[in-house]
Structure formats: structure tokens, C-alpha cells
């Protein structure tokens, strides 16, 4: 454990658990204890963990829908404009605005737009890419991507107090409680 003689600005305190359930319990307890700035880290997606943390509003589906619609509009407009307005050409006696023939491309562009929106929206909302993060300072945190479950109480939380909070986390049966330097 890294205990520094002089106090350092903390990002927060990190409690380590060895199972999803333990983490989930810890989160509930912490919420009861009135902590708000909580972060829970797990090596896989755990049902209901984010609800436990207070939940977040889902924007990704909306963004995706937006991307799809936008793609469709752009796709069709592009074809309609180029084929009927910009350079109308008689192709095999077919109508200039052969809308049925324009649908496939419209569809493909719509799907493409939606998929892009979904992925990029997710990353943006998650604040990724973020290549540097205080948590990465901790050697132990490596296991967050393997077999360890972490609960972090951020120092920004008004109830945060280095000593008390550490005590609280110990009381949750954490394998260890670590300081996350800023």
C-alpha cells in the first residue's frame, strides 16, 4: 500500500472486491451512507450496477436514431439532386427520379449513419478516449480488467473525508482500500 508521509491531493479512495455481488452490495451500502460521487469498475458488464449507482439517462439510442435518419435524408437527397437537378440524363428511358432504384443506397447510408452515431455517441458519452486517468496510477487497478471489482469514492463527494471514508470502505469487507492520487 502506498501511504505517503505528506498528504497528497486525492482523486478518491478505491475499495477492491473479488466478486460482482460484493461490489454490488458495497455500492448499495455506499449510496445508503449518502455518497453520490461513486464509480464502480468491473471486468464485465454487471446487471443493475449502474442503477445501483443512481442510473444514467440513455442517450445512445436517440443519437443512433438521429444518425440513421440523417443518413437516410442525405442519401436520398444526394441521389435525387444529382439525377434530376444537377445533371439530368436520359438513362435507358428511365424516369429521372427513379425513386425505387434510389432506395438501396438510401438504406445503406442510413444504416451506416446509425452505426457510426451509436459507436461514436457511446465513446463520447463515456468521455473516451481518455488515455490518462488517476486510476491507472495504481498497480492493483490492472486487475479491474481481469478478476477484480473496484468501488471508488471520489474526493469531490462533499461527504468525502480521507479517514472516515477509508473506515467506511473497510467496513464493506473490501480486500483492500487504496488511495488514488490526483
Amino acid at each position, binding site marked *: 500500500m502506498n501511504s505517503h508521509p505528506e498528504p497528497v491531493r486525492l482523486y478518491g479512495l478505491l475499495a477492491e472486491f473479488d466478486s460482482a455481488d460484493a461490489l454490488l452490495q458495497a455500492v448499495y451500502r455506499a449510496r445508503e451512507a449518502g455518497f453520490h460521487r461513486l464509480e464502480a469498475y468491473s471486468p464485465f458488464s454487471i446487471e443493475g450496477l449502474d442503477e445501483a449507482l443512481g442510473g444514467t439517462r440513455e442517450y445512445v439510442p436517440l443519437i443512433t436514431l438521429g444518425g440513421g435518419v440523417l443518413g437516410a435524408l442525405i442519401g436520398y437527397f444526394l441521389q435525387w439532386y444529382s439525377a434530376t437537378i444537377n445533371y439530368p440524363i*436520359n*438513362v*435507358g428511358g*428511365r424516369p429521372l427520379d427513379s425513386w425505387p432504384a434510389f432506395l438501396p443506397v438510401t438504406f445503406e447510408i442510413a444504416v451506416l449513419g446509425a452505426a457510426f452515431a451509436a459507436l461514436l455517441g457511446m465513446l463520447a458519452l463515456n468521455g473516451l478516449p481518455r488515455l490518462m486517468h488517476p486510476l491507472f496510477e495504481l498497480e492493483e487497478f490492472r486487475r479491474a480488467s481481469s478478476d477484480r471489482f473496484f468501488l471508488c469514492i471520489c474526493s469531490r463527494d462533499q461527504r468525502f473525508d480521507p479517514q472516515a471514508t477509508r473506515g467506511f470502505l473497510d467496513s464493506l469487507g473490501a480486500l483492500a482500500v487504496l488511495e488514488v492520487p490526483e
Partner: protein
Amino acid sequence: MKSPADIASPNVLTQMRGTDALTAPQQERRRVLGLMAASAALVGAGCSAPDERYLVPYAEGPEQLLPGVPVLYATALAERGYAIGALVETNDGRPTKVEGNPRHPASLGSTTPQMQASVLQLWDPARSSVLLNRGQIGLWPQLQTAIESQRAALEQSAGAGLHILMRPSTSPLLASQLERIRQRYPRLQIAVYDPLASDSQPAGTQLAFGRALEPLYHFDRVRVVVTLDADFLQGQPGSVRYARDLISRRIPDRGADMSRLYAVESTPGLIGALADHRLSARPDQIEALAYRLADAFAIAAPAAPAQSPAARWEQGLLADLRAHRGACLVIPGDGMPPAVHALACALNEQLGTPGVTHAYLEPLGYQPTSAAGSLDSLRMLTEAASAGAVQLLLILDGNPVYDAPADLQFASALARIPQSLHLSAYVDETSAACTWHIPATHPFEQWGDLRAYDGTTSLIQPLIAPLYGGHSAHELLDLLTPLQASEDHAQLQALWRSRADADFDQRWRGWLRAGLIDGTAAPAASARLQLTTLPAPQFARSPEAQPVATAPAAAVGSAPAGRAVQLIFAADQSVRDGQWSNNAWLQELPRSMSKLTWGNAAYVSPRTAAALGVQTGDEIWLEQNEGSGLPRQLRVGVWVLPQQPDGCITLPLGYGRTSAGPVGDGVGFDAYPLRLAAAPWYGQAHARRAGTRWSPALTQRDQTLHGRDELLPLATLGQFRREPRFATASEDERVPDHTLYPAYPYPGYKWAMTIDLNACIGCNACTIACQAENNIPVVGAEQVRLGRVMHWIRIDRYEDDRPEAVDPLDTAGSARTRTLFQPVPCMQCEHAPCEEVCPVDATVHDSQGLNLQIYNRCIGTRFCSNNCPYKVRRFNFLQYSNQSVEALKALQNPDVTVRRRGVMEKCTYCLQRIERARIAAELEHRGVRDGEIVTACQAVCPTQAIRFGNLNDPQAQVLMTKASARNYSLLADLNTRPRTTYLARVLNPAEPDRG
């Protein structure tokens, strides 16, 4: 970049003096020749980064030339020594295209395939460009001195030992020159040899009228035509005109009674495919038939073998002849013996109407010293030579070492001549055997004159200075009689000044402009029939009289020992006697009856093939020990042809050249070694299976309709009268009226085409004309085999045996299938399936309704070709267009983009001609008039089967043809709405019951 016009133009200037263009503007204004047009054609579509270019104007501007505006010059080209009028299109001084001369009787605006190809011949980089003396490069002066040194001796001996060997020629200038020489050297011997010339014809008229005469036919005045192994639709001096005349009586829509055509053939040809009644027979059978005909019309002739293999057919024929006395003609073939020609003359006097249906002319060509005929004159020359009696021999064009009858041993005789001069465009087999070779000028490079089949004389004017420093026959002959004015132009003018009356110079210009000297048509000779005793049939005694098929069938399968067959020698449809061997356009032009390119094949009937145990693709040995002692052997590729008579093997001549040039060398087999002076047309040999194979380069692999009769509706005249709309009879073959698409309006021009299948004789002229006009590349035998031929308009050939097709009179059965031709260019569909699938708008419609192909936009997906039900699109799978040889670039039509590799191309109704006419009309602020735009294929067609015009023009001819009841669209039920439609074929067989 060296521009081709650098080669051409300066010479043009020197030559253009005094000549007049048919379309040259009258006012004399200083013109300037820019070279953009020249360079325009050179780099084709899809050139990536543009390179720096230069504009190279003349130092001294030529007269009467508009840069980029093609000029037509009237001249004439020789067909077997006879003139066919031509208008040659020159772009910035470069001859690029040949059209027929509408005013010329032998042309009427049409040409032969060979005339189209003559432009390529002109630019052919393989043409001889240096004078050779015993293989060493020599100079003209050297030659002069060489002749000078001999002249004294020759004059002493009055020209003994001086011989001239020439091809048939009707040139008055040449004739006068030869006469002048003869006066100087009385003992001069002149031989005229043409491997394709018929000696029977003069001999026959000799028998009939007491002197040699030339027949002249008027097929437009004939009701019944009978051909005895005579395919007068091609290869004859009058063929182009004859085809026009014949067809003019065979369009059922026209009121006049449709003429009927009986063809008896020993080799299937165009005439047989066209005929209402066709009989394939061995030469001896044909001869016998002629005798029987004579018999039937009470003409004194030895009794012919009575039994006839096709009695019913002959009765039908006789009945028809009797029914139409006075309007019938019997045409004997070149190979038929003199007696048959004489009989034909006699028959025509009875059945035809002398002066109306036919006439006789005094011989137009220059007559050899021995009146006996061309072969005899050559024989005499050979004998003299081998006797060492020939001191100096001038060979004016021609290739006797290659094409003289084998048993004459001409080559060895030639070797014994101390001084032999050979004037020819190529260093060929004969050149190598002569002491001197002189490069000859192309007809487009010299002055001269020629007479047409009817005697009309045309002037030949140079369109460009000799590209390869050639010399004309006139120049060469002048070495024997040096004159003051030894230049062709002066000589020619001198000759015609002497024959013309007042204001010669003005007439001269008129003649040049018109392309002919009016009033020079030969008058009909007064010929009285004095038919005395005729020799007995000549072939009847030949051992091969009994057909092979009747021979024991045991030999079938197991390699048979030598089996007696009759050989039939025929000029190849493309390279003829071999003088066109090095012409790639002609080599790749599919032969009408086999669709074979790049080579010849031995045509064998199915039964004979079976008897020999071979089929198409196999090879056979032909062995011969008649004639001279040593046996001659020849291995030939077999092509099985249904209409071929049993026991007869046809060998096209003109192949197996060893010194033709890079294109023609080693292509096909040489049949001359089997050709004997005794029997130049019908020889004998023993055939046996060789066990080896050859692979023909075909442009059409499958030549049967597979029951898809709707592609080629067919009716007899009777049926047509009963049901005029037979072509579009069944519901699903009409163009559906309903369509999902709103109709596109075509308010301005609306181009369309019709192709009359009754008029098409399958002569291929359109294919090669299109090739010349549209810079269509040649791909070579290997690519043709792969199926990558580039022709934009192809002539499909089908073997058909539906009831309407087969000859009702012919009971022989073996050869009953009929050959049908169908020219297929781009159909210019209004609902073009090709356009819909092109991803880049490279093929689209324009406001005239043309189905365009934009080469520089094409990326080569080939989807359009897949989706074209007519498969008329052609793709540059490799770099086909020649971008390296300057001479070949100079040949290109500057108004048509040269296509690069990876680009699709196709027929565009000669878009460049349409645009040119449109702009010309706009300069005069008027619309294009009907007939101003003539597509290349339409222009060349001898029978005017193709009509093209503007559907919005009430005067347009194409409207009338479209209105014909026979009008139908190909694969109409696909609703592609083709602008190109066909007029269905109507045959006119005699109703059998009418007996």
C-alpha cells in the same frame, strides 16, 4: 510527337496542284492547315495526364484545305483490272476512308470489301519501300542505267527476248504505252496473267459468236436468273452493280414482280444463299445440266448424259424459263468449260432479250500477244524462258512465282532469265526470284485511268505522294521508251487531250470532279450467234463422276486409304488470289459461309467428311500425282459445310503465303501447288485423314437457330401476299404498348435504321466499312478464337431448315438447309438495358435518341455487355488499338476517339457523321435534310439494304421502310424498343405443284 501529317501533308501540296476535290469550295482563298485534327485521333480515350502539345502550321499554306474538314476526291480502284469508281476521304491530306462514287456505273455509291481495305493497304508499314537489285538495296538511276545498257541490243533485235508479264488491265494509258513500246520493239511478247481470270469466257464467246466478247448483264430487267456455278455477287468487275440490279427486283413491297433466282453451285456462295432455288452439284453435273438445258431449248449440242440427280428441280427450272421467255438469263461460271459459256450465250439469245437483258462488248482489257487467253500466254512465256529465249522480263504487279499453276514450274523458268524486273507493292515471292524489285505505288499515289465493266473510263488521281517511294507501271515502262514528258500526269493529259475536243482543261477538271469521263461507255457489239459444233461434255468422262458417298461405307471411321475427290479452286472471299494477304482488316473479316477468319479451310460435305472419317477441326492429306511426275501433297484443315456437294472439296486460294508480310505470312494453307494448268478450276486428288487437328478462328461458333425462328421471320411470296404482317404475327412478338416509364420526348432529330433482310446478300462490306470509319482495331487470330473480335456490325449466319426455308424443288435432301444472313449492329434501344446498369453514366441516351458510348467515361465493368440481349458491345480486353506505328495512326479517322484498353465500345450510328452534318446544317441555319447523313455501313451496302434517317422528318426514306409490313424488331418482347429494325425475308420459290 511526330505527327503523321508531317509524313503526308507536304506531298499533298505537290500533288494537289491541278487536282480538284468533289467538295472543294470554288472561291480560291488562302487556307491554313492546323494539325490538331491529326493529333486528335492519336491518343485515345482515357489518357491520364495530358502532355505538352505543339501546333505545327505549314510554312506555305496549301490551297482549298480546311483544317479538320475532310475532303472527298474522286478516283477509281481496280477490280480484276476493271474500274470501280470511288470517292476517297482525306483528312488533312491523309486518305482515311473509301466511299463508292454515286456517279460511277460500277459503283453507284457502293464498294467491295477490298476497296474499303485498300486504305489500310496504302498505309501498310510492311509495304516495300526500297528498290532491290539481287537483294541489295538499289537506286532508281542504277535501274535506269541497267535498262539503258540493254536498250541498244534490244532495238537491234527488234525486241526479241523482251517480255512483259502483267495483270489484266483496262487502262487506255497503259495500252497506248504498250503499243508505243511494241512499235519500238516489234517482237516484244506480252503475257497477261491473272490466276482468277476465266479463259473459258472469251473462248466460249469465240465459239458462240466467232470472236471473243464480254457479256454485260442487266439483272434489273430479268425475271428468272439461272447461275451455273457462277457467283456474280462478288469478285467480278460488275459485282457491285449486278448486286444492286438483282436486288432491285427482289423487294416484295415494290410493285414490280419479284424476280426468281435459280443457283446451281459446286461451292456454296452468296448467290446460293440468296437463291430461291438452290442445287448443289458437282462440276460435271452442272455441265451436264447445261447441256440438258440446251437440249430442252433445241440448241445444237452433243447429247448430254440424260440421267439427272435432281430431275424435279430441273423440270421446275425449265417450266419457269419457258414461262418467262425473253426475261431470263443463264450465267455460266468462270470455271465452266467454253462449251457451257457458248451454250449460255445461245440460251440467252433465246430466253433473254439481247440489248435489254444483256449485251456483248468488245473486250475492254488489254489483249495479250497470243489471243489464246491468259493461261496460255503465261505458258508461252514460261516455255520461252526455260528455252533461254527471254533476255529481259518486266513483271508489272502480280505474283506468278506464288500463283502460277504448279505444273508450269514458273519459278525455275524465271531463274533462267538474266534480267527480270518485278514491280510490286510488297517484296513477295516473285520479287525474291527476280533480279530487280521495284516498289510499286498504291492507286492512291499515282495518275492513271481505268475502264469499268461497261467500258466507262475513270481517271485515277493521286491523293498523296508515294509514302514509300514507289513507282508506277507507267514510269517503269518509260524506261523502255524514254519520252520528253515522262511524268504520269503529263502522259495522261497528253493521251486524253488527243482524244478530247475543245477546251480540254475545263473538261479535264470536270472529269476529275465527276470521277469518270462521260460518254466512254462501250457500245454494244453487234454479235450474231453462229454456234457450230460443240465439243462433247468435258468433265463427263472424269473418273470422279460417281459421287463419293456411294462408295463402300466400310472405310468410314477407320483411316481410309486415299479416296478420290474432286478439287474445286476458288478465290478466297477476303484475300482473293493472295494479293490482299497482308491486309489485317480482310484477314479478320469473317468469310460469309463459315464465319472463319485468319485462314482458309477445305470445304467438305457432311457425307464426304463422314466417308473420310473426319469432321470440322480435323485435317486431311490431299495427294496428287497427275500432271507432272512428282506427287504433290498438301495437308488442309477440314470445314464441314452442309451445302457442299458430295465428293467435292473446295480449296480457297490465296493463303499459305511465305513472303506476304508480317500479317499474311504462314496463315492458312497454299492450294496453288495442287492447281494445274490443265484444270485450273476443277482438279482431282486423293484425300485421306491426317489425324492432326487445326483450330479455326471463328466469329460465330453456333450457326443454327435452335428453333428460335422469331429472330428471323421467313415467308414465301405467296404467304407474304396472304399475310403481309407475318413477321409480327404472333402477339408476343409485337412491341408491348404498355410500359411503366413515362415516354421521353424526342422533338428534334430522332434517328433510326432499317435493315432489309431481303436485300442483304451477306457480303460483309458493311462490317469492314464500319471498321474503316470507326477506327476499329484488329485483334488477331488468337483473340478471335477467344471470342474478342471487335466488329461493331456483324453478319450473323444461320443454317435453317424450317418449311419456308428449304427449297421445295430440291429432293436431294443433303443440302436442303438454307443459309440466312442477318446484319446485327447496335439496336439503339430506346429502353436500353445496357444504360440502366452502367454505374458511371458511360452509356446514356442523348436528345436525338442515340444510345451513346462515352469512351472516356467508361471504366469497363462490362455489365452493359452482359445486359445487352443482342451482344453487340465490344470490349478492349487488351490494348488492341495500335498506338506505336505512325503510319497506322495516320490511318485513323480523326473524328472518332481511338479506344484504349479497358473500354467498352459499340456502334453509334456513326455519331461523328451525324454531328458533322448537324453542325454544317446549323452553319446554314437549317435542319439536316434526309440523305445528308449516311452511315458507313449504309453507304457501302451494294444492295442498299440499310436505310437510316430521322423519324421526325416526313420525307425520310426510313419512314417508308419502317412502314413496310415486313418491319419487325429483334427480340421485341423484351420491350427494349430498338430504333434499328429489320424487314423480314421473303422468298420467291416456284410453287412446286405449278410444275
